[in-house]
């Protein structure tokens, strides 16, 4: 049987620089190939090279054979007849992959109109059929993308990709932007469609959990080279390349070892007490107007929780508390309330027995936010960025003192103090989050809120940064609230965890207990949806064995 896709010596150079080293691969129909690696490893470049959609100025060499036919020699116009008909592609961002101004039905119908000479009505009918196939049978095809949830939009994108039953489907980080539950559904959909149509699937993702669940074969890439390739089973102990091993280790860090001594001293004096906290989304839209927040999370289905209601919690001195929940459940809103960035609509927040000031002052509570790129004013030097919290301290320490403190703090988080005079663009993502942490620490706060501090980082860096943060906070005796949607990460640093669902706290307890024996259905859903490659591989191998 002819392979659906064969690459021979595929290379891409941009401005004389090789971004993709010679790559060979073969992908048979009905098979799933997983390609993984850190950002910039050349995963997406491979996909675009196959599609012939590389950015201007790049040069592609090597052979690409689709169902036995060379397509690397085709003109762009001829490639147009291949794209969408013989290769379907699904992109990462369901939010932006659809034209916001056109009804979903017409965007799907466009595929039929483009490749088959059929009229509008017929194309619309076919589009409806495809929508039904991807599980959107009850969604009118006149809907506009913004009226759909993220998962629904991704189904529309998939519908466009498989509309003409192509032999090859390329999914480039197709589920990365979705929350865990939705991710599972979409993966299931892709699996079903591939099986039904006998498609070959090229699954590009940084998430080894997804690969372990879906792929038959894997390729792990680093710096444009395939450093590891083989059957998916090799994840279970068969990896040889050190980078691949590190990647795999980092993707599934060991659970936090709740040491007995700490557990005993657990009834530490409560530092932060929250009682009966209420907050309405309506007030958040106001705050948004005030420039305080990033606004409503996008792409959520309608029927959002009304807000936060009846939140009670306490954090002890020096305690590390985890907070998990599906996206949009109110985690970040709670964080902003605890930081004093929003004023609660009801209930109280006390720090050391005193009401938390709104807006914040005094530098008692600090934070590290998710996005390392928007967390720093690109125009300021790192010294100025790190010492900014001193503004809240009265009397303000001298410039000399501030500089010394910044140097010491940077040193402590593992950044060369020599960087102080540079601007933030000189720092990598991991360094930025370290610097953000240094900034959060510099006024020696009582509580640090870490809102998804590492989720934007690649797995190996994620683990290192996380470990450093946890270590320093513990040494300094600073309480931390660690917010994440990634259960593995929470498991690795937090002895205690709280689960949030629809604006309420539904579970609170030692991390291991909560995850092992979920009492609330939401917790169970979170735990089920979390894809840990170790578990996945274990399950698959067991299944194979039972077969």
């Amino acid at each position, binding site marked *: 049987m002819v392979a659906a896709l064969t690459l021979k010596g595929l290379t891409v150079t941009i401005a004389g620089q090789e971004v993709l080293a010679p790559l060979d691969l073969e992908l048979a129909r009905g098979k799933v190939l997983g390609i993984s690696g850190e950002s910039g490893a050349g995963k997406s470049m491979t996909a675009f090279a196959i599609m012939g959609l590389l*950015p201007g100025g790049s040069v592609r060499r090597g052979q690409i054979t689709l169902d036995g036919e060379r397509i690397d020699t085709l003109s762009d116009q001829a490639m147009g007849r291949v794209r969408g008909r013989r290769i379907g592609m699904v992109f990462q961002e369901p939010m932006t992959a659809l034209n916001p101004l056109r009804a979903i039905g017409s965007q799907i119908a466009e595929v039929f109109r483009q490749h088959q000479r059929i009229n509008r009505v017929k194309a619309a009918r076919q589009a409806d059929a495809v929508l039904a196939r991807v599980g959107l049978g009850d969604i009118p095809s006149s809907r506009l993308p913004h009226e759909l949830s993220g998962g629904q939009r991704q189904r529309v994108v998939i519908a466009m990709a498989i509309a003409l039953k192509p032999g090859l489907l390329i999914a480039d980080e197709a589920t990365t932007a979705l929350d865990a539950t939705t991710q599972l559904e979409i993966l299931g959909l892709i699996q079903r469609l591939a099986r039904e149509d006998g498609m070959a699937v090229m699954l590009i993702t940084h998430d080894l959990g997804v690969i372990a669940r879906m792929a038959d074969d894997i390729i792990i890439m680093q710096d444009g080279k395939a450093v590891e390739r083989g059957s998916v089973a090799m994840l279970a102990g068969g990896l040889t390349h050190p980078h691949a091993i590190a990647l795999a280790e980092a993707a599934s860090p060991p659970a936090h070892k709740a040491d007995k001594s700490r557990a005993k001293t657990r009834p530490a004096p409560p530092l932060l007490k929250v009682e009966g906290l209420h907050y309405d989304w309506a007030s958040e839209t106001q705050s948004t107007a005030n420039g305080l*927040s990033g606004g409503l999370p996008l792409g959520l289905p309608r029927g959002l929780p009304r807000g936060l209601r009846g939140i009670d919690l306490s954090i002890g001195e020096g305690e590390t508390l985890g907070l998990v929940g599906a996206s949009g459940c109110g985690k970040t809103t709670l964080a902003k309330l605890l930081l004093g960035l929003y004023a609660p609509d009801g209930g109280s927040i006390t720090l050391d027995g005193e009401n938390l000031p709104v807006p914040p002052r005094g530098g008692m509570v600090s934070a590290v936010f998710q996005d390392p790129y928007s967390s720093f*004013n690109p*125009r300021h030097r790192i010294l100025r960025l790190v010492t900014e*919290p001193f503004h*809240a301290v009265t009397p303000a320490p001298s410039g000399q003192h501030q500089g010394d403190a910044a140097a010491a703090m940077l040193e402590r988080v593992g950044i060369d103090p020599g960087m102080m005079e540079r601007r933030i663009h000189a720092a990598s993502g991991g360094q930025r989050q370290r610097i953000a942490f240094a900034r959060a620490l510099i006024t020696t706060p009582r509580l640090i809120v870490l809102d998804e501090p590492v989720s934007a980082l690649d797995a190996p860096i994620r683990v290192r940064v996380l470990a450093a943060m946890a270590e320093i906070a513990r040494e300094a005796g600073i309480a931390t609230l660690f917010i994440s949607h990634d259960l593995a990460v929470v498991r690795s640093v937090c002895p205690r965890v709280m689960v949030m669902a629809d604006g309420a706290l539904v579970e609170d307890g030692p991390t291991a207990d909560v995850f092992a024996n979920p009492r609330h259905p939401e917790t169970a859903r979170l735990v089920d949806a979390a894809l840990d490659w170790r578990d996945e591989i274990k399950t698959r191998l067991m299944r194979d064995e039972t077969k």
Partner: protein
Amino acid sequence: MSSFNTRLQRGGMVLAGCLALFALIGFFWTPYDPAAMAINERLNAPTALHPFGTDHFGRDILSMLMAGAYTTLAVAALAVLIGVVIGVPLGLAGSARKGRMPDEAILRFNDLVFAFPALLTAILITARFGPGAVNAMIAIGIFNIPVFARISRAAALPLWQQDFILSARLAGKGDARIALEHILPNIVPLLLVQIAIQFSIAILAEAGLAYIGLGVQPPQPSWGRMLADGQTIVAIAPHVVYAPGLAIVLSVLSLNTLAEVMKQRFGLMGGRG
């Protein structure tokens, strides 16, 4: 970027530099007194003595062009300055309080100024205060206020959503301080581009005002006045308008090129790369 573009841009920048130099020299020295008339020498075609010829009063066009460069560029520069100094704070204030009172008020004010045709505003101002360089500046400047208010508001809005603003708030900083320390420096590139564009528009506006007899008063020369004075003479002595016309077109071109260059340097362009 293609070498064609690069060459074009380099040309534009060199041109802009030359014009600035021209104006600077004209401020200190001109070959002749730009106001000295010699009626019997009027409308002479270009000669070695008068490289651009003489105008309808026999004045040396080169000297007037040099002295006029200073006037025209100064009027344009100050008109833009008025727009920046008043417009940017308004825009920042609006962005800090998006959708609420000051923002709405500023938006309405913007609409109002935009609704007045620019030239009418200028005519009304000169009808009230009399024509002159200063009033021309103000008239052009007023129209620049909403332009800068609008662009700084639009550029500032997404910045207020950035996480570093949250950090600044955590440090106890208020809106005004954040606007000054965090928002303003980040919209400077965009403002610079707009300044170049508005500058070129102001040069054209000066010419427009001069055409209807407002603006700089004699004997002070300006490009716009030279062009307007020469418009009916063009049929018998076209050389009187070549120099000022070319000066205006070239300076506008070079400023627009400068804006393009800055746009690309600052990564404000749409498009790949």
